[in-house]
């Protein structure tokens, strides 16, 4: 290892191959421009090129790729949602994930762990049973297990939770997984780049030109570009982009924080989530515990961390695992999440021709990265909403057709 490091110091040229080309020139026009180089934008670029042969495409990222919520999330992948629309959609995503490392020839550390959502009250048990039945109906491996079942999979857990919130049962979801988040952005980025898509970092979209209800181009800090199609995939920045084209939405921006512990030997195989205790935790291949909780309670466009969050999360984690009391926290961070009132995304065509939206992914969009890329690529290439996303359009609010995924998405991400 030290010798390999030395090569970097001594060689004049960067001694490893780059994941994608550094583009120094923006062209004056593209067939499509994707705003946002997170997992979603890069996945859409990848499938646009691979499945629809659209390669005259630019991905514009104001910072560095994967530096948004993609690189800040806690990487839980699952499909045990509550509504038929949700379950079908996320199931497609989980299937895509399973082959992705092969597709990319890049190790995503995709690791299937099994996922337990703990129920501490009768009403939570009822919701878990409901979710299990919806899932089974669509052929997804979820079932209700009793407290002993939880103990068997995770012997270290204190089933009484310090006496004040005893675990009654749990929704077990076998395909629940974790993956290495930035590798997802790199994998899609490299794949898109190899097919000719241009990735421009440090390129911020400052305006979008719309003429007679049609997109005609974008303004950036590096000049203007003409394009008939713009896909907006900017998560917590979506309201600012929507303002550029004069659209309104129900999105509300809240920070979501997370933290990791120092590495320890592997002891936690499954992913454990408790909605009532506002905590979820998994252990990475490196041995760190990745921990998160619920949203910060009010609107804020910032990625600051707070002590209240670390204290609250630590105390709830100790309810579940008292023996962690001497373990150190090594990092804490936040991302800006774009929340919708029905905990479902906003995707597809909009009232502006050529302006497509992939947003409202809030606290749960990492798992959807592959399927969002696929369905948005279809939608942009054909100028028609993919059938899996029809129920997620922005117009559902004006038509009072909300999706109702809150029961399955609020803390569990």
């Amino acid at each position: 290892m030290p010798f390999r490091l030395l090569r970097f110091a001594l060689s004049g040229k960067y001694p490893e191959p780059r994941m994608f080309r550094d583009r120094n020139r923006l062209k004056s026009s593209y067939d499509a421009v994707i705003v946002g180089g997170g997992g979603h934008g890069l996945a859409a670029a990848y499938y646009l090129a691979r499945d629809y042969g659209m390669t005259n495409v630019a991905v514009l990222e104001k910072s560095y790729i994967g530096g948004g919520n993609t690189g800040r999330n806690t990487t839980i992948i699952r499909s045990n949602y509550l509504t038929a629309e949700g379950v079908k959609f996320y199931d497609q995503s989980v299937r895509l994930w399973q082959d992705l490392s092969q597709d990319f020839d890049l190790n995503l550390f995709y690791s299937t762990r099994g996922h337990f959502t703990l129920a501490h009250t009768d009403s939570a048990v009822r919701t878990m049973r409901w979710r299990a039945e919806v899932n089974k109906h669509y052929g997804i491996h979820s079932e209700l297990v009793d407290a002993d079942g939880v103990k068997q999979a995770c012997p270290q857990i204190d089933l009484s939770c310090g006496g004040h919130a005893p675990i009654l049962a749990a929704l077990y979801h076998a395909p629940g997984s974790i993956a290495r988040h930035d590798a997802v952005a790199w994998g899609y980025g490299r794949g898109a780049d190899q097919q000719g898509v241009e990735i421009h970092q440090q390129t911020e979209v400052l305006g979008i030109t719309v003429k007679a209800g049609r997109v005609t181009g974008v303004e950036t800090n590096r000049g203007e570009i003409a394009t008939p199609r713009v896909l907006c995939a900017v998560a917590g920045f979506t309201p600012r982009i929507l303002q550029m084209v004069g659209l309104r939405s129900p999105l509300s921006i809240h920070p979501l924080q997370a933290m990791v512990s120092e590495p320890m030997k592997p002891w936690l195989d499954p992913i454990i989530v408790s909605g009532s205790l506002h905590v979820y935790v998994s252990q990475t291949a490196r041995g760190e515990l990745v921990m998160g909780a619920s949203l910060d309670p009010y609107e804020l466009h910032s990625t600051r961390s707070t002590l209240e969050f670390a204290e609250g999360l630590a105390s709830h984690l100790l309810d579940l695992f008292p023996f962690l009391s001497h373990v150190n926290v090594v990092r804490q961070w936040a991302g800006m999440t774009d929340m919708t009132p029905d905990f479902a995304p906003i995707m597809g065509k909009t009232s502006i021709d050529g302006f497509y939206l992939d947003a409202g992914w809030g606290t749960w969009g990492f798992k959807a990265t592959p399927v969002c890329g696929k369905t948005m690529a279809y939608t942009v290439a054909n100028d028609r909403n993919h059938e899996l996303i029809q129920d997620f359009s922005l117009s559902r609010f004006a038509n009072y057709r909300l999706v109702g995924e809150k029961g399955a998405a609020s803390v569990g991400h």
Partner: protein
Amino acid sequence: MVCPVNGARPVSEFVCWGEVRLMLDPNAVNDATWADYVFNRNSVPDIKREWWCHTPSNTWFIAERNTQTDEILQTYLYNGDAA
């Protein structure tokens, strides 16, 4: 955060209830306008007037807050001026 009645208190004692907006008359507007009022929000970072409640004392008041820096500029009791 400074409650106009109880003075400076830890922010965990407060709940934010969103931007101060003029309520439309549901009988006077069409469905689309009503949906816009019910669902849509102005979520671009800005200095906003928001409803807050100090929960232990149930004091409702208005705060002017910068939603990008989280700086609270001032807080005061509602004076009937909703717009």
